[in-house]
C-alpha cells in the first residue's frame, strides 16, 4: 500500500504529463468519498415522456376545475385532501418512481403534478386560516415554503427537476416579496419597478444558465438563456419608454445590448440567445 505522500507525488507527475485532469480527479475523489453527484436528466424527450407531462398537467387541471366549480360546497378537509393531499402523494410517488431508472421520467411527471398542486393546497390553507391568500404577503410565504421545499429536495435527491422548480418558485418569491415590501406605498413608479425586476430576473437567469452550462445541469441552460434574454431585452426595451416619455439612457444603450446579445450567443455557443 502506497503512502499518502507517494500517491500525491504520483498524481503530481500525472498532472505534469497531462495524463489526468483536475475534473477527473475531482470526480474520482467524489465517488470515493460518498459525495452525491447530480442526477443527469438530459435524455431527449420522446412521445411517451411528453405524454407523461401532458397527463400530469391534465391531473392538475382536473383538480383545479373540481375545486373552482365546487368551492362553496366542498368542506375544508376535502379541499385540503384534494389539493395538498394529492400534491404530497404525487411527490412521494415521484420519489418512489425516481428510484428505478425505467420509471424515472414518470417520476418527473409526478413531481410536476406536486409542484402545480401543492401551491393550491397552501392557498386553501391560507384562505381557511383567514389570510387574504392572494395578497403579496401570503404569496411570499407560499412561494418561500415551496422554494425551501424544492431546494431541500434538490440537496437530498440531486435531481435537475428540483433545480427547475427551485428557480421558478425562487422567481415567484422575488417578485412577491418585493411587491409585498413596497405594498401600496408610492415609492416607485409601478411599471418601472416591474420592468427593473424583470431585468434583474433576466440577468439572473442568464448567469445561472451560464453556470449550469458547464456541469450536469446543462439541459437547463437553454431554457434559462431563452427566458433570461427575453426578460432582459424585453424590459430594457420597455425601460426606453415611448414617445413622449422616452428614457434617453435606455434608448441609447439598447442597440448596444442587442449587439452584446449577438456577441454572447457566439461566445457561449448558444442559439437560445437569438430566439
Amino acid at each position, binding site marked *: 500500500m502506497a503512502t499518502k505522500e507517494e500517491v500525491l507525488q504520483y498524481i503530481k507527475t500525472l498532472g505534469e504529463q497531462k495524463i489526468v485532469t483536475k475534473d477527473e480527479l475531482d470526480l474520482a475523489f467524489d465517488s470515493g468519498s460518498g459525495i452525491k453527484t447530480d442526477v443527469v436528466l438530459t435524455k431527449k424527450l420522446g412521445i411517451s415522456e411528453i405524454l407523461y407531462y401532458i397527463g400530469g398537467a391534465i391531473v392538475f387541471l382536473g383538480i383545479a376545475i373540481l375545486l373552482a366549480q365546487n368551492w362553496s360546497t366542498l368542506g375544508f378537509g376535502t379541499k385540503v385532501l384534494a389539493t395538498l393531499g394529492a400534491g404530497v402523494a404525487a411527490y412521494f410517488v415521484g420519489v418512489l418512481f425516481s428510484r428505478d431508472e425505467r420509471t424515472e421520467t414518470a417520476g418527473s411527471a409526478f413531481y410536476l403534478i406536486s409542484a402545480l398542486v401543492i401551491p393550491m393546497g397552501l392557498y386553501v390553507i391560507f384562505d381557511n386560516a383567514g389570510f387574504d391568500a392572494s395578497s403579496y404577503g401570503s404569496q411570499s410565504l407560499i412561494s418561500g415554503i415551496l422554494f425551501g421545499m424544492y431546494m431541500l429536495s434538490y440537496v437530498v435527491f440531486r435531481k435537475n427537476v428540483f433545480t427547475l422548480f427551485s428557480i421558478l418558485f425562487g422567481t415567484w418569491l422575488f417578485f412577491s416579496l418585493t411587491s409585498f*415590501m413596497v*405594498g401600496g406605498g*408610492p415609492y416607485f413608479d409601478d411599471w418601472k419597478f*416591474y420592468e427593473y425586476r424583470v431585468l434583474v430576473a433576466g440577468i439572473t437567469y*442568464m*448567469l445561472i444558465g451560464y*453556470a449550469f452550462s458547464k456541469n450536469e445541469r446543462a439541459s437547463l441552460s437553454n431554457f434559462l438563456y431563452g427566458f433570461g434574454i427575453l426578460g432582459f431585452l424585453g424590459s430594457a426595451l420597455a425601460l426606453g419608454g415611448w414617445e413622449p416619455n422616452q428614457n434617453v439612457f435606455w434608448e441609447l444603450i439598447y442597440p448596444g445590448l442587442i449587439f452584446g446579445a449577438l456577441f454572447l450567443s457566439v461566445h457561449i455557443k448558444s442559439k437560445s440567445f437569438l430566439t
Partner: protein
Amino acid sequence: MEIIKKNITLVLGISIPILMILFVAGSIYLPGLFIKPHFNFLYASGDDSYYYYNNGYQYSVQNDKLIKNELKQPENPNYTPPRVEPKLYLYDVVKNESKEIAFADAQNLNLDSNTKSPDDFEVVYGSRGDGFFPFFWGGGTDYNARYLKGHNVSKKLNLQLNGGSYYNNFRFIGWIK
C-alpha cells in the same frame, strides 16, 4: 472560498436579486429613519357635495384662516343623498394619528393651503398592485390608502374618516404653520 471561485457566475446570479431586495428594503425604510415630516395638517371628511347632502357648506382657506363656504345645492326631489355633517380633523404627523377638531378651534389655526408643506411633503394616494406570478401588474391608484410623501420618504397615514374611505371623502385643507 474555492467553491465560490469555482461557481462565481452562479454566486453572482443569485446575489443580484438578493441585492435588489436589499436595495428595495433600504430605499423604503432607510430614508424614513433620517427624514421626518414636521408640519401637521387639517383635513375635512364628509363635505363631498356630490355624494352627501351636507347642510350646504364646505370648508376652505382664505388669508391663512379657515372659512365656511355656503353651497347652493340644486333642489331635486328624485335625488336624496345621505345627510352627513362634515367634520374637521387635525393630523399629527409625529404621532401618526388624527383627532377631530371643532370649527371654532380650527379657525384659530394659521393655515397654508399649498399642496406641498413648507418642508416639501404632500398627501398622495397609494398605488394598487395585483396578480399572481408571473403576472404582477401595477393596478393604478388605491383610493383607500393615503400617504405623506416627500424626500423619497412615504409614510402611510392613519386617517379617521367621516363615512367610507372613498375617493372624495378626504379633502386636504391646509398645513398648520
